[in-house]
Each structure stands twice: as structure tokens, then as C-alpha cells.
């Protein structure tokens, strides 16, 4: 069977599975819809969180990103996993004890303020829409490359599937499909990685393999890669080019952002008890770590393979996949010196080859000549990653609208049935908007990802921590903190990414901190402003201290 047929079969089977699960787990109440009736086991929630978290970007782009960035790619590896330590210790158990349905709910109650709630709703909706449009785009790319259907058709099919289980099943449907999606995506990621590890290093464990040696020459892969990089004029693979301060700040912003992302936080509302929330974060990170420790290995294998196959070789001798990806415009070759050979170089003026980093994982099976079914599997995995994340984000948007705005602000005495209907309608609406964004992506999707993390780090993260770990921070402090954190972070990113992109270089950044890393400064600012303003404004009312005590002690988490 060829790649296309395999892809049809594997993607079709996985979709049938998701729909089957959705039909079995319909939501009967708002509690089912928002938090899956808080009856999810910690292990299942860990898997669902892993699928929720690992998006099209983690599955498709990350290994490619690392393979082009080398050591600098560590910011993603540490940033997107280290945040779970913060989540397990500083946020998840307390939020579970609080027992809300959404993140703005906590902010609104702890800071006894409708305004704080609305600020939080705005952040949650913005962050989630930013993210979800990227997922829908990922769905479109996989469909168009592997099934050779139009991107629009691909997005519509993806929307249909998500619509079915998110609107029908809410959090309950999403949770159990995410468990299935985790299994699909991790299997699809590991199979080619293990193939590559065996081929390039003679070990079946990718995590060990990329520290191993080439079975023929006995040279360590990482040394070989550093050597190739030097020859071609790139920075050493294990050295990187970013400054230490920038790596530090980006990593911190991604960690705090991860811990503050609403779609991740709400997953921990779905387990029965506080102790389940703690251990569930551990399971989640374990399942995530399987992929995240494999990605840098895949990056090294892919980079080595690519340089061996392509660099300095005659264009006419390129294998079939090269031409296929050239057709999609994701690989471009321009024979500037007319010698018919591909010159790949770190020196931009001599370089003749441009490779989109997104194709590394998708093209890997073909570059390495793996069996056809592996390529089909990778397509199904990429779709699982994109759909599971999209569904989690859509739920955040729908609950922000139906619960935080409609129920808490506009019509407090809406009936249970009415709210459930409103939740379904807003989920449907969110799916439609996300699909439109996926079909016509705003040109700046890539740039706004920095936004999502920076905003989460500089808004929710400090507000939730201060709300749990202090009694004295009050409404005025929290609102001033969130607003100053967001405004500062947004202004810095907008300045360098949209207003004056020409100045977006290390010489112009404050203290050498890039827009990706500025969320860390915004977060520090939020903490500082909240504490100072709280000192000079009236203390919180008496009930707050009791609320804080209640959050801090697990007993009676029902």
C-alpha cells in the first residue's frame, strides 16, 4: 500500500475511535460539561492533560525547531516541562480545593471583584484563540500534504470532528477522547524515533541513542554534528547562539506561561480530590516527558540525516521526497553558483537551500526510507495532537462565555439547562471562529505565540499564586498587577514584532531580553505592583482570609 492509502486507513480508524468515545460520553449537566463531573482518575487525567498540552507545535514543529536551533532549542524543552513543577506545587492542588469551573472564577472570588473576573476572562479568551488558530492550521497542513485534499477541506473535516465531541460531550467527551489521542500521538511519535535510533546509533532507545556513536565510524553523533556545523559555517550544535540571559528569561517565561495557561489548569479541576490533583500533574509530566525527551534525539537524527543527504550533493541526485516537498514550497533550492550542487551554509550570502523547520518530523519517515505505514501513522499522530489541543482550548472559550460572562455577570439566575445550552452554543461558535482562523490564518500566528505565553505568565500566574500564598493582596493590588503586567508585556512584544520589526535584534532589546522572554519581566512587575498597591489600599474583607485557609487545607474537597 502506498503512503496515501495508509494515511486514509490510519486517520480514518483514529477518527472513528474518537467519535465512538464521544457518543459514549455525553454531558448531562454543566458539571459534566465544564469539569467532567470531577470523576476522572488521576492517571487518565494525566494522559488527557498530556494530549491537551502537546499541540501540533509540539508534535510537528518542535523537533524540527530544535534541530535547527541546537542547544538554543533547550528553552522549549525546559520551559514547556518545568512549568508543570510550578503547576503541581503552586497552583493545581489549591485550585482543585477551591473547586471552581474556570480560572476567572477563582480570580473573581478571591479578589471579590467583577472587574478582576472580566480582566481574567479577556486574557483567557485571547490566549485560547491565539492558540487554537495554530492547531486548525496544523490540521490543514497534515490533510493537504498526506491526503492531498485542499487545506480548507482539511480544516472543515477537523472542525466537524471537534464539533462533534466538544459540543456534545463537553469536558467529559474531551477527556476520554484526549486519552485515546494521547495513545495515538505517542505511538506515532515513538515508532519513527525508534527506527531512526536503531539506524543511526544502533540503540533502540532514542534518549540514549543521540549520545551514542555512529556504528560504522565510531564517532559520537553530537561530535559529528558539531563538526559538520563548523564546516558549513553554522554555530556549534551543542553551543547555540542566544545569549545566556536571553535563554534564562525565555525559559522562565515559558515555564510560568505553561503553568498559567487556562486550558492546562482546568484539567486539574476534573479529578476527585486534592491529592489526585497533585499526583495527576506528575502523571501528566511523565507522559509529556516521553515525547519531550525523544524530541531532541529526533532533532539530532534528522539534522544528521539531512546534512548527509543534502549538503554539497548534486541536485539531480536528490531522492523523491525532496521534489515532493519542493512542490509544497517548504523546501526551496536556488542554484546560485550554477554548479548543480546544493550548497547549504550558515553564511546567508552563500546559502542556496531553505528548509521549513515544520517539515522535519513529517518528512522524517521518507528521508530515512521507513515503511509507508509509518508515514501514515505520523499523519494520524499529528492530527491527534492538533485536535486534542484544539478541543481543550475551545472548552476554555466556551466556559468563559457561558459561565463567567453569562451566568456570573449577565444573567445570574439562568437555569442549569439554559446554561448547558449556552455552553454548547458558545462551544459551537468557538469551533466556527477557530476554523475560520485556520482557513485564513492571520499572517502573524507564529509571532503571537510569544504573546500567549507572555500574557499567561504576566497575568494569571502571579494573580493565582498571590491569591493562595498571601492573605493581604487585595482587589486593587491584583487588578493593578494584572493590568500592568499585561500592558508592559504586550507593549514590548507589539513594539518589536509589529510596530518596529526592523529593530527586533539583540542590540535594541532591553538588557538583551527578546520579546519571547519579556513575559518574565512582566510577571515580576505584576508581583511587585500587586504587593505595593495592596500595602497602600484597604485590606481585603474578613471572608478572604477564611477562603485562603480553606484553599490551603485539603480536607473536604468535594
Amino acid at each position: 500500500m502506498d503512503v496515501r492509502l495508509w494515511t486514509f486507513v490510519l486517520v480514518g480508524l483514529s477518527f472513528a475511535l474518537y467519535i465512538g468515545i464521544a457518543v459514549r460520553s455525553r454531558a448531562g449537566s454543566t458539571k459534566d460539561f465544564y469539569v467532567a463531573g470531577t470523576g476522572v482518575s488521576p492517571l487518565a487525567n494525566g494522559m488527557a492533560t498530556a494530549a491537551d498540552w502537546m499541540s501540533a507545535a509540539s508534535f510537528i514543529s518542535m523537533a524540527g525547531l530544535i534541530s535547527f536551533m541546537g542547544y538554543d532549542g533547550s528553552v522549549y524543552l525546559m520551559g514547556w516541562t518545568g512549568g508543570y513543577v510550578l503547576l503541581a506545587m503552586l497552583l493545581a492542588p489549591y485550585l482543585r480545593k477551591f473547586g471552581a469551573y474556570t480560572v476567572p472564577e477563582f480570580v473573581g472570588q478571591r479578589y471579590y471583584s467583577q472587574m478582576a473576573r472580566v480582566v481574567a476572562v479577556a486574557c483567557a479568551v485571547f490566549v485560547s484563540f491565539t492558540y487554537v488558530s495554530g492547531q486548525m492550521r496544523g490540521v490543514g497542513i497534515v490533510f493537504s500534504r498526506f491526503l492531498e485534499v485542499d487545506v480548507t477541506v482539511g480544516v472543515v473535516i477537523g472542525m466537524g470532528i471537534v464539533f462533534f465531541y466538544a459540543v456534545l460531550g463537553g469536558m467529559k467527551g474531551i477527556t476520554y477522547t484526549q486519552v485515546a489521542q494521547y495513545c495515538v500521538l505517542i505511538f506515532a511519535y515513538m515508532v519513527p524515533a525508534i527506527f531512526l535510533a536503531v539506524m543511526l546509533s544502533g540503540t533502540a532507545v532514542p534518549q540514549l541513542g543521540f549520545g551514542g556513536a555512529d556504528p560504522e565510524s565510531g564517532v559520537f553523533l553530537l561530535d559529528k554534528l558539531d563538526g559538520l556545523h563548523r564546516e558549513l559555517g553554522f554555530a556549534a550544535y551543542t553551543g547555540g547562539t542566544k545569549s545566556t540571559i536571553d535563554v534564562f528569561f525565555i525559559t522562565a517565561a515559558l515555564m510560568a506561561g505553561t503553568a498559567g495557561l487556562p486550558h492546562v489548569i482546568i484539567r486539574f479541576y476534573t479529578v476527585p480530590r486534592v491529592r489526585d490533583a497533585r499526583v495527576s500533574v506528575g502523571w501528566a509530566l511523565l507522559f509529556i516527558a516521553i515525547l519531550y525527551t525523544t524530541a531532541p534525539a529526533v532533532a539530532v537524527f534528522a539534522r544528521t540525516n539531512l546534512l548527509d543527504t543534502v549538503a554539497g550533493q548534486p541536485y539531480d541526485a536528490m531522492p523523491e521526497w525532496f521534489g515532493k516537498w519542493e512542490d509544497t514550497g517548504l523546501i526551496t533550492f536556488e542554484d546560485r553558483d550554477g554548479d548543480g550542487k546544493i550548497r547549504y551554509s550558515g553564511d546567508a550570502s552563500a546559502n542556496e537551500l531553505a528548509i521549513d523547520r515544520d517539515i522535519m518530523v513529517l518528512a522524517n519517515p521518507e528521508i530515512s526510507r521507513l515503511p509507508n505505514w509509518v508515514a501514515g501513522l505520523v499523519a494520524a499522530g499529528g492530527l491527534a495532537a492538533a485536535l486534542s489541543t484544539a478541543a481543550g482550548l475551545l472548552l476554555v472559550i466556551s466556559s468563559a462565555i457561558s459561565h463567567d460572562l453569562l451566568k456570573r455577570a449577565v444573567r445570574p439566575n439562568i437555569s442549569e439547562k439554559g446554561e448547558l445550552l449556552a455552553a454548547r452554543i458558545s462551544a459551537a461558535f468557538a469551533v466556527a471562529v477557530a476554523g475560520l482562523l485556520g482557513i485564513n490564518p492571520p499572517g502573524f500566528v507564529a509571532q503571537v505565540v510569544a504573546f500567549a505565553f507572555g500574557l499567561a505568565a504576566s497575568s494569571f500566574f502571579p494573580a493565582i499564586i498571590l491569591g493562595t500564598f498571601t492573605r493581604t493582596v487585595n482587589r486593587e493590588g491584583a487588578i493593578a498587577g494584572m493590568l500592568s503586567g499585561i500592558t508592559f508585556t504586550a507593549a514590548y512584544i507589539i513594539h518589536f514584532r509589529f510596530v518596529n520589526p526592523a529593530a527586533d535584534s539583540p542590540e535594541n532589546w532591553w538588557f538583551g531580553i527578546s520579546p519571547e522572554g519579556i513575559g518574565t519581566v512582566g510577571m515580576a512587575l505584576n508581583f511587585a505592583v500587586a504587593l505595593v498597591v495592596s500595602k497602600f489600599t484597604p485590606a481585603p474583607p474578613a471572608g478572604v482570609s477564611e477562603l485562603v485557609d480553606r484553599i490551603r487545607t485539603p480536607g473536604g474537597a468535594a
Partner: protein
Amino acid sequence: MPHPNPYWARNLRYLAILLSIWFLVSFGCGILFADALNAIRIPGTGFKLGFWFAQQGSIYVFVVLIFVYARLMNRLDREYGVAEERGGGRRPRVR
């Protein structure tokens, strides 16, 4: 002066210790001291130590830290009698 809430004080102490380790393996070994550690290699492999911490080691430690914290807190909950009874908040199984 004894802390008014010894349960919370112990929790804060656990947090201080575990988060110091969290900081040390990632921001310390993986970033600030990465260049210095890169002079050392893990014997028998091609891994330079700083690079390994940044792309592998820190992640393994993160996973362990969370499970250790969950265990410590379960013990602490029992010690102070604030543990949730079995099946604490679980929904009664009514069909």
C-alpha cells in the same frame, strides 16, 4: 514563636527545598553553568554535561520532583488529619 499553622509551614518548607532543586537543574546546570559543565562529558557517551542537563536531565528531575512532592504531602495530610477520606469528593455512583 511557633508558626500559627504548622501544616502550612511544613508545606512551605517542602516547596522551598524542591523548588531550589528545580531551579538548580534547569536554570543552574542547564543554563547558567552550562558552558562550564560542557567541559565534562558523561563517560561513554557523546553528551556534554551542560547540554545533557538542558535537553534531558532537567526533565527527568522535574518528573521525580512532582512525585516526591505528592508523596510528602500525602504523608503530611495524614499527619495533620486533613487527608480526604477515601473517595473524598468522588461523585456517588448513581445511575
